[in-house]
């Protein structure tokens, strides 16, 4: 990938992640999740055929639509310590990823750019899912983690069955967890 394109892509991804976690509106968070899927499409299109990458993009957008259909009424509340923690987490994970992810090329034969972006998304998703008490954020974190996994795994394996399975998993995950979140909210009210 051309260096400048990589820098632009990673800048958009970092900004999208920051916007997702620092937004009080579920709709804003979902729009930025959609942008994240668009970035993933540009990355995957370089190692997969355009058709498979497009399937991934459509699945991503479908995921956003499903979550929006169920969770548009969910309210997010941000508190100052949490905002500080999220910003610190993004910076910390970013530094660690840039320092260590390229070394994984010893074990995984793929470009370090894929590894940097993939590991960044995976780690940020994992940390958010582990620390967030909000179930909606938990779902978004799971999906970010899954995107990171797809970006790391895509250059290694590009079969149609894997793409189909991952797409199905993503849609099922979005549907099942969104439904759980909304039922949970109804039960708590």
């Amino acid at each position, binding site marked *: 990938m051309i260096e400048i394109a990589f820098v632009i892509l990673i800048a958009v991804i970092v900004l999208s992640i920051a916007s997702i976690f620092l937004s009080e509106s579920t709709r804003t968070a979902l729009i930025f999740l959609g942008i994240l899927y668009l970035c993933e499409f540009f990355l995957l299109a370089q190692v997969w055929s355009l058709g498979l990458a497009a399937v991934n993009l459509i699945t991503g957008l479908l995921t956003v639509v499903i979550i929006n259909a169920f969770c548009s009424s969910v309210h997010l509340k941000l508190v100052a310590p949490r905002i500080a923690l999220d910003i610190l987490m993004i910076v910390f994970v970013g530094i660690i990823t840039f320092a260590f992810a390229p070394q994984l090329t010893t*074990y995984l034969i793929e470009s370090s750019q894929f590894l940097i972006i993939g590991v960044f998304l995976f780690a940020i998703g994992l940390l958010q899912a582990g620390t967030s008490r909000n179930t909606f954020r938990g779902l978004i974190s*799971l999906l970010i983690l*899954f995107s990171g996994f797809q970006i790391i795994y895509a250059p*290694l394996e590009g079969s149609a069955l894997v793409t189909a*399975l991952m797409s199905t998993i993503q849609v*099922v995950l979005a549907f099942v967890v969104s*439904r*759980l979140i909304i039922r949970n909210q109804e039960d708590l009210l």
Partner: protein
Amino acid sequence: MNLPMIWIIIPALLAAGSLLVRERKFLYVTALSILCLVLGTVAIILSFQRSITTVLTTQETFLILGRSLTVNYQNLPLVGSIYLLAFFWIISLNFYKSNDYFPAFCVIYAALNIASFSIDPFLYSALIIFLANALYLPVLSTGSFSKISGRLRFLLYQLISIFLILLAGWILAGGEIAPVESDQLFFSTLLLGFGISIWLGIFPFHTWIPLLSDEVAFLPFGYMLTLLPLSGILLLLKFLNNFAWLRDYNAFFPALQYLGAVMVILGGLGAFFQKSLPRLLAFLIMAGIGLLLTGMGFIPLASTDLVAAWVLPFFAGNWALSFGFSGVGKSAGTQTIEGLKGVFYSHPLSSIVLLVGLLTLIGFPLTAGYASNLFILSITWSANRLIALTILISQILILATGIRLLLRMAIRDGKKITIPEKVNLNQVLILVVLLCNLIPGIFPSIIYNQLFAIIGKIFPLL
């Protein structure tokens, strides 16, 4: 028509289609029960008939998006057992309040589990199992959604595990073409170890099991935690069967032995100090998973026999435990052991089933686990006494838990034992549960020799 079509695709499609008639409960449950019973019985009969004359079809492979699903006649007994398990669970759940979607998703979960060990390349099985778990998640609960953190944690852990397993598999698969370097082997073994540990809930990644048990119903939870470890164990066996690198890796089998022993003792300790019924079930199942893992650790000494020996007690014990806990839990009206006062008098059969399930899991004489327990203790005693002692201590703790449960249930609390006036289907089912837990213990050689042969044929290199 080929075997994967008959045992994976058609049942899954029929189960999905049956959701359209779920309002007509009798038809819906009966049709799915019969489907599972027929598939299970035919699979087992065909696997025995194959050597003589009958062949349903010679096609064992189904191509899907450039990859293949293969169900062959050697796998059919395992396939049949999974459908029979699904049949028993659907029938059992009919007697307790359950999610309307459970019977259909029970069949889909069984079909996806079969697909997971039929897929080639087998690495994709991790993805299929995750899909099965995600689909199954909504039917785990009977309607309580006030707590969902356990379910989210379960999904998170499973997602991490498939990632680690797929990466490990990719590195190891390279070893089929060119020799793997030692640091790559170490890295992939580490990834595989962590992946399987998270998948099976091995210490210290076990927290999702008790947490999940708190928010879900006993029977669907028991069904999932019977098939999920089995698929994990089968995946690990496939890894071992396919990659000689892994079999020859010095640290691999001892690590499995110790991880298994830690699970067994953790399950025993957790059960002994437990006050909550769902968590008690979770810890008992964890002890069962630990025994399966320990069995895998002794593959160099006992081949796959030790694993095969624990599969049946694990199935039968989990069924009895889930069934028994559902019965006594419903009767007690609470989810604590304290609330079980006098349950033995109001629900004597459910109480007995619960205790028999518990005894099966610890290999008490005359139960399905007895022969398996003697086998594992004799192997571990000669190979590693520390592990044998750990298993024994855990079994003593679980036995003490059983005595504690019995004493609690037998407190009179003004109740008199109630003998049902007429026999109903629920009692017949309880009898079947009891027989499944007792017959293999009374006639072990008939059943276990067959089991050893079945698993041995599926993994010939182990």
